[in-house]
Structure formats: structure tokens, C-alpha cells
């Protein structure tokens, strides 16, 4: 077991001050254990992106406590000093669009992360190739992102999210641009990876097709979450 996954307690986020203030997250509690994939579902404007940004350490919560693994990241106004290094080492991101760097080939798009952390180029590329092989896009390793199909790009983006073996992966509508078959494939991959690398994964989604696959789902509405058991169906 790697650490304790994601754990947040009493997390709140307020945008702005005074009359115009928006309370986007209200006392959110959430736990995702290593190896688990949970869904985060809610209507537009409910606070999904805000929660994901707090979890991703790109915006600071107004109050509450957040832990990634054993490490306390936020605690009522206190925060870890180097959020940039935290993002690089502890959090993998998968976005709605793949957002691959267009001027790097697929391998280097993925190898860039370990390189940024100081891993030598060869080793970083070897790691990237391993993941590409696991995700079955190794045949596109030398291609440029623009030469890939949507599904291949998304798999490359998932490989990038995984390459530093982060204890946490945050996926923001990762299946939105994909047809149902490919969407299912992505969810299967995320579940495989969660199990294989003992990663805690949160998937924000609207996608009706994939919702039944989660064993646990957090619903969010007006900044308030409540937890629910999912169907936990297979991926076919």
C-alpha cells in the first residue's frame, strides 16, 4: 500500500470578497484510497472544477485540511511550500482534451515529466515507453501528437499522468471527446493502472456511459458533496 491516497476534511473555497463572494465548496469531506477509482458527478457550476483545482494544488482552499498520501498539503490556511514540486511528484493530471505539447513527440511528451524531476533522458524515455506499451500505443511512440487519433492522444495523455507514478491521479472528463467504446477502454485503463500502481484516482464526469462503472461516487451540488455507492459494473 502506498500512503493513504487522498483525504480531505472540511474543505471550503470562497471566490472573491464581500457581496460578490461565491462559496464554491462548502465543508467537503472525501477519501479515496490507493487502488480506487471514484467518480465525481454534479451539474454545471456545482464546484467540480474548483474541487479538482484544490486537489491539484493550483488554487488554495479557503479553509479545511487536505492530505495526499502521508503528507499534509493544506491545513486551515497553512500550505506546503513547494506546490510546483508537489504537483510534479505526487499528482498526475488527465484532462478533457489531451493537451499534449505539440512540438514534442509522444515519447518525449511523457518523458518530459521525469526529466523535469531530474531523471536522465534515457531512463525517462524507457519509463515512457513502458507505459506506452502498457497502454498499447507503443507503435506511435515516435509520432507527433498531431498525427495521433483522438483515442491514441488520450491514451498518451494518460501515460503522461502516470509516468511519475504519482499516488494520486485527477482526471477531468477524460472520456468526453471519445465514443463509448473508447470511453470504456479509457476507464478500463484507469482501473488497471489504479490497481497496478496503487494509485488513488478521481474521475470528474458527466458521461452516462461510464458512471455505472464506479464502485463509489461523490455527488456534488452547490458546493456540497455526498457520497453514494455506485454500481461497480464491468467495462464492456
Amino acid at each position, binding site marked *: 500500500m502506498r500512503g493513504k491516497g487522498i483525504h480531505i476534511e472540511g474543505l471550503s473555497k470562497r471566490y472573491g470578497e464581500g457581496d460578490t463572494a461565491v462559496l464554491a465548496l462548502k465543508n467537503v469531506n472525501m477519501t479515496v484510497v490507493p487502488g480506487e477509482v471514484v467518480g465525481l458527478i454534479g451539474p454545471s457550476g456545482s464546484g467540480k472544477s474548483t474541487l479538482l483545482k484544490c486537489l491539484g494544488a493550483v488554487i488554495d482552499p479557503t479553509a479545511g485540511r487536505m492530505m495526499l498520501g502521508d503528507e499534509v498539503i493544506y491545513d486551515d490556511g497553512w500550505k506546503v511550500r513547494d506546490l510546483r514540486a508537489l504537483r*510534479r511528484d505526487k499528482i498526475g493530471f488527465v*484532462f478533457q482534451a489531451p*493537451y499534449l505539447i*505539440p*512540438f514534442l513527440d509522444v515519447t518525449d511528451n511523457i518523458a518530459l515529466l521525469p526529466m*523535469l524531476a531530474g531523471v536522465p*533522458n534515457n531512463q525517462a524515455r524507457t519509463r515512457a515507453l513502458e507505459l506506452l506499451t502498457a497502454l498499447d500505443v507503443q507503435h506511435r511512440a515516435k509520432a507527433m501528437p498531431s498525427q495521433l487519433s483522438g483515442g491514441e492522444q488520450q491514451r498518451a495523455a494518460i501515460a503522461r499522468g502516470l509516468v511519475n507514478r504519482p499516488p494520486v491521479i485527477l482526471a477531468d472528463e477524460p472520456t468526453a471527446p471519445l465514443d463509448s467504446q473508447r470511453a470504456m477502454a479509457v476507464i478500463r485503463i484507469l482501473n488497471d493502472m489504479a490497481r497496478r500502481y496503487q494509485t488513488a484516482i478521481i474521475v470528474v464526469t458527466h458521461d452516462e456511459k461510464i458512471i455505472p462503472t464506479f464502485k463509489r461516487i461523490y455527488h456534488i451540488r452547490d458546493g456540497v458533496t455526498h457520497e453514494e455507492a455506485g454500481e461497480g459494473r464491468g467495462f464492456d
Partner: protein
Amino acid sequence: MISLAGRDILHAWGKFIFTGIGLGLLIGVTLTMAGVYRGMVADGKALLDNSGADLWIVQRDTLGPYAESSSVYDDLWRGVRAMPGVAAAANVTYLTMQVRHGQRDVRAMVVGIMAGNAGDPGWPPYLVAGRQITRGHYEAVADIATGFKLGDELKIRRNRYNVVGLTRRMVSSSGDPMVFIPLKDAQEAQFLKDNDAIWMQRRRTAANPAFNRPIVPGLLEAILDSQTTNNYVNAVLVRLARGYTSEEVAEPIRRWKRLTVYDRSQMEEILIGKLIATSAKQIGMFLAILAVVSAAIVAFIIYTLTMDKIREIAVLKLIGTRNRTIAKMIMQQALALGSIGFVVGKIAATFAAPHFPKYVLLMPADSIAGFFAVMLICVLASLVAIRLALKVDPAEAIGG
């Protein structure tokens, strides 16, 4: 770590090459402008070198003979030659004019030289074809930049001259090629009026009772004679004898002959410090404008390239790229653009320089200074884009 800037350039090489070429042409113009100034200085120095003189004796309190007009009597040189420390002294006249050859005319500086030998002050020091002037009249030695050939017939005022020799890099301080002719002819050319004017002047003189006195026979004829001869030259060129300093020789001439004397360094100061000073300022202004335009182009291009990458920069930041790494990427791209521009500019200037009508001298030192100026401009120009990139919020990578 891989070079992000390098990869981006390889990916968008077309954009970089074309912008680099555009910038390069601008840099080429800048280098050529600097070369034009260096050429003017070099022309001035060539004029002084080729005159073969160590001292220039000119009309008192003038900056002659090149920067201002000057006239001294043409018999002065004899007295000067007898003074201690003077190895050679020679009259010289300079007159910039259009020299006709058949149907076309060429702007040239007509130099009148005394009878003498090659190597005398004022004489062209070497020829590339033909021979020096040997007759007292109607022979000319022309710089090849005039386009004249041996045996060509030139027309200066009313007289015709036969080109007997050609020389090279004999130019005035403004870059006009020289045409050497005998001194007497040159004096006449400076003074010679057309027939109508001479006839008018004779009538006026004859009508003046002070000059036309029947009781003094020959007076009118003597006066008319003096009016049609020119006893002036523009300067006397002096070569020093071995072992004398220019001041040792110049001082007695100033005191006893009551004339102004310049040595080589003073003459250089007049040519470069005064005669071409305004042109130099003009060129300086152009260089400043070109620098600003180049900076604006680099800034604009790097800014738009960065604008196109906002999303990628947000992603890079989100996945933990340091601000320093992103700033380095943008600055390296600006420097790469500047380097392409400099290489293109240097090549363009080198190929264009010989085709300019005046001498363009590209000095390696100017190129090196230009390279560093381009690099500095690129660094400054990239700051705008870097500021933009540093302001990008990594949260932008996660949708709204």
C-alpha cells in the same frame, strides 16, 4: 533534460526561418549603414593617404581645401620649398564637377597637379593602366570608378582631355572618383568663363574710365589680361624631410607666410569630425530606428509565438515546470531568431556591399558589435513574452 526551445523551433521551423530572413534583411540594412559610415571614413583617409602630403597649406582661417574653399597664390610653393624641413611642395587644385564623356557625364573631383613625377605630392601614387601625365595640357588620369577607359576623350568646361592613365581608389571625401589634369588646365577650368561672359567683362572694363585711359597705352590690355588668368590654387601640399616633425615645419610657415597649416591628424579631424559629422549623425539616427524596428519585430513574433502556446505553458506549469525553464525556452527562441537574422543579415550585407555606388566597408568589429546588439535586443524583446508566460495560471489547464 531536452531543449524545449530547440524542439519548438524544429517543429515550427518554417515560421522561424521566414521571420529570421525578414529580420535578417533588416539587420543586413543596419550592417550596411554602418559600412556606409566606415566607407566614408575610409574614403577620407584614402584621400589624405593618396595625396602624398604631410602638411596642407591653405588660406588663412579656412578649413580647406576639402571641407571649405581655400585659395592661395600659385607662386607660394617656391618659398615654402626653400624652408627647412620641406622635402617637396606642390600646388594643387580641387574642383568637384560633372565631367562629360560623350553622351553621359560623371560626377568627379578634378584635381590639378603640377608638372612633376609620380610620387610628388598630389600625384596619383600608382596606376592600374596607362601612364602618368607627361604633357602640360589636355591629358588626364582618371580613377577607374569613373568608368572611363584609356584613350577616352573627356570634356571639362570647354576643353577636351585624353585619358592616358587609370588609377584606383582615388576618391574625394564624399566618394567621388578623381580625374587628374595638369595644374594650368585646372586653374583655367576653375576660372574659365564662357565667351559671352568674357566679352561682357571686357566691355565693362573698357567702359570704366579708370581702366581705359588713352594717355596710358597698354593699360587696358594689361588689365584685361590679368582678369583672364587665375593665379590661385586651393592648397600647397608639403612633404616633410626626414627627421622633421610636422610642427617644426608648420610653425614657421604659419608665422612667416601668414597662412593656415594642417598636419595629417588635424586634417583627419576636419574630414571625419566636421565634414562627415552630419552624415554620421544621420546614419546614427537610422541605426537607432532600425534597432527599434528590429526589437519591435522580435518582440512581436516572440509574443505571438508565446500567445499560441498559452495552453501548453499552462500544462507545463501544471505538471511542475519551473518558471525559469519556461522563461529560458522563450528567451532561447528569441536568441535563435536573432542568430538566424544575424547570419542572414551578414550574408546579405556582404553580397550587397560591392554593388553600392559609394564605398561600403564592412568591418569585422562592427559585425561583432552588431551581433551582440542583436542578442541584447532579442533578450529585451523576449521580456514582454516572458512576462506574459509567467502570468499564465496553471489552473487554466484544468477547464472551467
